[in-house]
């Protein structure tokens, strides 16, 4: 999955589930859209769905400091990379 594909998917989720439309990549989502910890938990479920993988509690906790779209994309990219490596090792 490329970074562009991840961004497209995240933007679609933000619009569909959180009514966040066309956010600037580095804008603070909490300040600009009231995107709070409740939303973050819901977003993690969405990420699990589209990656088709279950996140560990430790992985989820890492997401709690995320504030911007770019950081979300970095996070998903990192998860996708880890899962790919794990699959290759297996």
């Amino acid at each position: 999955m490329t970074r562009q594909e991840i961004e497209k998917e995240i933007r679609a989720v933000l619009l569909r589930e959180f009514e966040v439309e066309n956010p600037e990549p580095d804008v603070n989502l909490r300040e600009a859209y009231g995107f709070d910890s409740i939303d973050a938990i819901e977003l993690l479920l969405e990420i699990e769905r589209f990656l088709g993988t279950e996140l560990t509690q430790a992985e989820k906790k890492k997401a709690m400091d995320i504030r911007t779209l770019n950081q979300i994309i970095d996070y998903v990219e990192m998860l996708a990379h880890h899962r790919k490596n794990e699959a290759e090792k297996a």
Partner: protein
Amino acid sequence: MPQRRVVITAASAISPIGHGRKPIVESLVNGKSGVAALREDHLISRFIHSRVYGTVGYPIAYDFSRQYRKTMGPVSYYACQVAREVLEQAGLPPDFVTGGRLGIAFGSIHGSPTVQRDIYRIFFEAKDKATFQGIGAVDYLKSMVHTTAVNISKMFGITGRIISSGTACTTASQSIGFGYEAVKYGLQDAMICGGADEYDTITVAVFDNLLACSTAFNDRPGETPRPFDRARDGLVVAEGAGAVMLEEYEFARKRGATILAEVIGFACNSNGGDLILPNLDGITKTLRLGLENAQINASDVDLVSAHATATKMGDIIEAQATGRVFGTQPRVVALKSYMGHTMAACGAVETVLTIYMMQEGFIAPTLHLEEIDERCAMIRHVQKLEEIPVKTAAIQNFAFGGVNTCLMIRKLT
């Protein structure tokens, strides 16, 4: 302790007979019932003998952004809508609304049963982690017992006291009473007070299994409940919400607020015994305490809004207590005859309707009161619409658990 006068500067209700003043007044004047057929829930409704429900059967144009919707169950939609309406009507300055001197007293009987039902469905059926994750991160916030009050506080940035009574049918009357006391004794300068309950078949099932629900009019929902009537056969569960804005009198007067009525007294006690049976002594004492708290005589009361759910014993006990305390002078109306029992909301809805009647100068009759039960005949029932000014009203509510309230309001002249 210094005591201050407390006035009502806004009122609104979502009820089975309409939303807001105009449609509700029209329904009262025209004798229109809001009771309809029980809706199927595809769960337990097929087992319920009572096939009637006081239904909010019209659309409501909510305009809540997702930021607020995400923590709201259906009960909070009702609550936040009536809260928004009383805030708009009252026209309080924005800095006052958020400044800490405005509080909230608002409740429901048990939060949002719709959301709770979904949580427990997963609780009993979860076979894997994916199903378990169906319990949403916000489900507790949507369904908890104080969900209405805190969603109101969040939506409007209100930072004062939160009181969230959950005493079944006295929830909203306690909200208004406790809000009144908070303003009267200077703890707050204004309070949004009320109650709400959403469509819920569990409540119907509880009363149905107690043989307390109306069943004889299943084919004619608009003819039940029938408080004080010989043919009454039980209560009808209903949904809705009501809210009032209470303000300290001088504060309201100085800012030029429209004053709808004054709250002059409130009493609340408990029967200290059986949790279901109505208690003549307990109710009688509440009504007397209400008069005492308002510092008025029974002869000063023009109108009694009776709790009157249309159960066999409840109506008789209430009529006896009302007769003992108020005699035959005040007119007595049972407003549940129009819509059924809106549960946690009823104290606020009935207060709002009483204010509307005060403002419009009429007393609505108790609907379907065709033949007064002789055991309820010791009070002055209203059987036809009367165009008559109402100056002072007593609003009576009683709840499972043996809780009784009496609220006294007066029209300012």
